[in-house]
């Protein structure tokens, strides 16, 4: 069996994992800074966009089932070698930035919440080891891990939200749309970098095997559940903290403060939070895998074994925070790349079914 092959239920749980893995950390506070208590509308809009794009991607996967071409091959057969190089380079940059921001967010969470000042290099080394092991074991292992952890992650977030959800004054959300449509749209565009997690589907195009001929239903169901959970976190976060929300960097850790009714019982919520943090780790692994695949496709290489130099090359940018403020660097980089990133995230999917059809036809009649 191909060690990267996954079925549609595994893809569904993976989508949930990558969807919720990061958006409960820094994103709610960033959105609160932009649009105040209307942040949940931005999240909702971006999720709708993501859902549409994901459906188009899944359609492309379905078209591609016949010849099982890789994303790189599809691009090469349709938009030439240069086009493939540009698109994959953009994706590589996107993934490296996402890995960096994820690592910074989770490190910050450990540092502030758990009060653990682990050395950044040790932290990065541990993450890189996990990623290397995961790539060696194949994407199937990553997907199965996410499938195994799915109920735990879902329950842990739910446990953290149940008690605060009963305490929040929902009236804090009123008036709805106070920030104005323009601001909401602007925020959605500028923060789109943090969304669009469905892009992992591009790099699994040839590996997805629909289970019982069902591809859309399981993936969209878990996507909807994950999206609702993230929206709920945003709602609870802005309702609990109001105008202070923009200053509270790690949303989920602040929300969890309200999960414990009596502090003398200990901060058991930290344990729950730790369980959920495994989804962040899985998300880093998934993006690492995608970045690795980008390098493979760009260089046109097929390593018989996992290439350690490539893994180290992807991990190297993670040492940036040792020298400069990673937040500034990433923020500037993302600002420069907002448009190219938005193109590959939200324009390319509309062309994907067509590209997949053309590439498969060319494959059938070379």
């Amino acid at each position, binding site marked *: 069996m191909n060690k990267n092959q996954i079925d549609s239920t595994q893809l569904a749980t993976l989508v949930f994992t990558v969807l919720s893995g990061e958006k409960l950390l820094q994103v709610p506070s960033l959105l609160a800074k932009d649009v105040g208590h209307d942040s949940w509308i931005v999240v909702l809009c971006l999720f709708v966009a993501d859902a549409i794009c994901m459906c188009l991607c899944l359609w492309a996967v379905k078209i591609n089932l016949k010849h099982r071409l890789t994303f790189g091959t599809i691009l090469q057969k349709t938009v030439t070698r240069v086009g493939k190089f540009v698109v994959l380079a953009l994706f590589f940059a996107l993934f490296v930035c996402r890995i960096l921001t994820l690592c910074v967010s989770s490190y910050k969470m450990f540092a502030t919440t758990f009060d653990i000042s682990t050395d950044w290099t040790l932290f990065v080394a541990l993450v890189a080891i996990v990623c290397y092991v*995961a790539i060696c074991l194949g994407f199937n292992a990553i997907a199965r*891990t996410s*499938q195994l952890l799915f109920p735990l992650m879902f329950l842990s977030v739910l446990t953290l939200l149940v008690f605060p959800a009963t305490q929040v004054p929902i009236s804090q959300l009123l008036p709805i749309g106070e920030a104005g449509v323009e601001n909401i749209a602007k925020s959605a565009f500028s923060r789109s970098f943090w969304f669009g997690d469905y892009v992992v589907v591009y790099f699994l195009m040839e590996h997805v095997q629909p289970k019982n001929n069902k591809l859309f239903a399981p993936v969209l169901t878990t996507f909807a559940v994950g999206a609702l959970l993230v929206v709920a976190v945003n709602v609870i976060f802005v309702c609990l903290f109001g105008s202070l929300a923009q200053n509270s960097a790690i949303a989920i850790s602040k929300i969890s403060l309200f999960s414990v009714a009596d502090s003398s019982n200990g*901060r058991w919520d930290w344990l729950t939070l*730790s369980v959920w943090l495994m989804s962040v780790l899985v998300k880093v692994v998934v993006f690492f895998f995608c970045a690795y695949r980008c390098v493979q496709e760009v260089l046109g290489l097929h390593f018989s074994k996992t290439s350690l130099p490539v893994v180290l090359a992807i991990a190297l940018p993670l040492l940036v925070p040792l020298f400069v403020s990673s937040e500034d660097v990433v923020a500037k980089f993302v600002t420069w790349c907002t448009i190219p990133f938005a193109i590959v995230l939200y324009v390319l999917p509309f062309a994907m079914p067509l590209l997949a059809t053309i590439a498969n036809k060319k494959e059938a009649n070379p």
Partner: protein
Amino acid sequence: MSTILFWCIGIVDNFFAFFLQMLATWANFALKRLANCHFCKQENLQVKVYFAQTFGNTSNMTQSILQQLLQHYNNCDDVKIRTVCCGQQFSVVLLETMCNDQKVCDFVLHPLLMQQNAKTLQDVEQQLALSVGTKTPCNFFEVLSDFSNGYTLVFDQEGNGCVAVDTRIALGRAVIEPPTSMVMRGPREGFVEDAKNNVTLLRKRLKTPNFKVVNLCVGKFTNTLVSVCYLENVADKSVVDKVILQVQSVCIDGLLDSSYLARYLDGNKTLLFRRVGSTEKPDVAVGKMLEGRVAIVVDGSPMVLTVPYLYIEDLQSPGDYYENSSMTTINRIFRFVSVLMSVLLPSLYVCLQMYNYQIIPFKFLVTILNATNTIPFSPFTEMLLVLVIFDILREANLRMPSAVGISLSLVGAIVLGDAAVKAGLIGAPAVMIGALSGIGLFTMPDNTLVLSLLRLAITFVGGIAGIVGVLVCTTVITLYLASLQNYKTPFLAPFTPDIPQDRQDGVAKTATEKMKTRPRSIPNTNKTRRG
């Protein structure tokens, strides 16, 4: 004169007749004795005389096979040869130490000596039809194999080959309850060292022609019998073929136990977790075969191997299937929790003590602090010390005779545990957590060593990197477990990949009458359990 002459002739005639009668009686008595008794020392001497004679009279081919056989068994005093005349001369060759003397007399010598007109090997084979196993080996290697396994070989003098008669000795212990898997309810029979008996125990429970046995020989010197057993129309043929191919491809000097073979059956040679099941209970092996698995019986080992193997099987106890399903479910949850606890509890204790003590409830924290504030070691060192001591005690206890083992347990519990706590070297909470974790490991008896090792590793990383380290270790272990697959069966099925139909015998167990389908995670050709 003539009267006297006739009288004398009559006396001589009578005397001669009497002499002949006496001779016949003596011969009859000797034959009967020969047929019923074991080989005695005097007969051994006779055999040696025949030995020389036999090779003087035989034709080239038989001589060649015999000579080759005897060259192979040069300097083996337990090789016995007898020449029997029953119409024609036949050489009976056997390994005394591997043959049952009674069987040799009853099924080989006696029938041959009673026969007076056997001309060919076919006649001999007909004559020896009393024996259960009679065959004509095809080649010299088969001759060698049969001979070393305790078959008695009968060679003719014309070089037409030989007949092998099953006269194997049956040595071994009685079928008793296996000490490694005792049950409150259910069958108490256990496998023994003899492969034939073990296959009998399986066949006793599977009275169907669909029960198939493929016998193979493994081991250059041991020539060990390996029986691959499966249920036709249930087990997947490709899995059976793969198992047979892998057993055939084993190149080893000696196969002393089934665990030797297990390493060869584990295709990718996993570092930690074994992927070949083993059981000492025939009912468990049959239960697994009914699900489509293949059982491998190795002569000389009471452990029967089963493939494919799922991790969940270690969570299942043989007694589970004879108890109420809800009770079984509760027991399995306990086992699952205790395994998680035993692997993660020491590392969490270290992390919480060293980095995140806020997680611990206040009163509990005060109790722990009171018990540990005089300890000279850090929680990390203290816990590692406790775990290492526990592992040493466990290892020593396993190797000690049971009587000494009790003393060792007492020394471990009282001297090392109680005295160390009283002396203020180790805190009581650490000892308690170490003990709790140690006991928890034994709920998954097949993986105790691996889990113990993982526990140490996670505690070590957790002590260095805190809760991040524990998370990283857990994720890596999960990734590793999720990647394992053998004989088309994912190791972590039915949880990942998720197979809803197989959850009927996962952690929660459905009542037996409701389990209508065979597990889908195990390749099989018949999905329903009703035929």
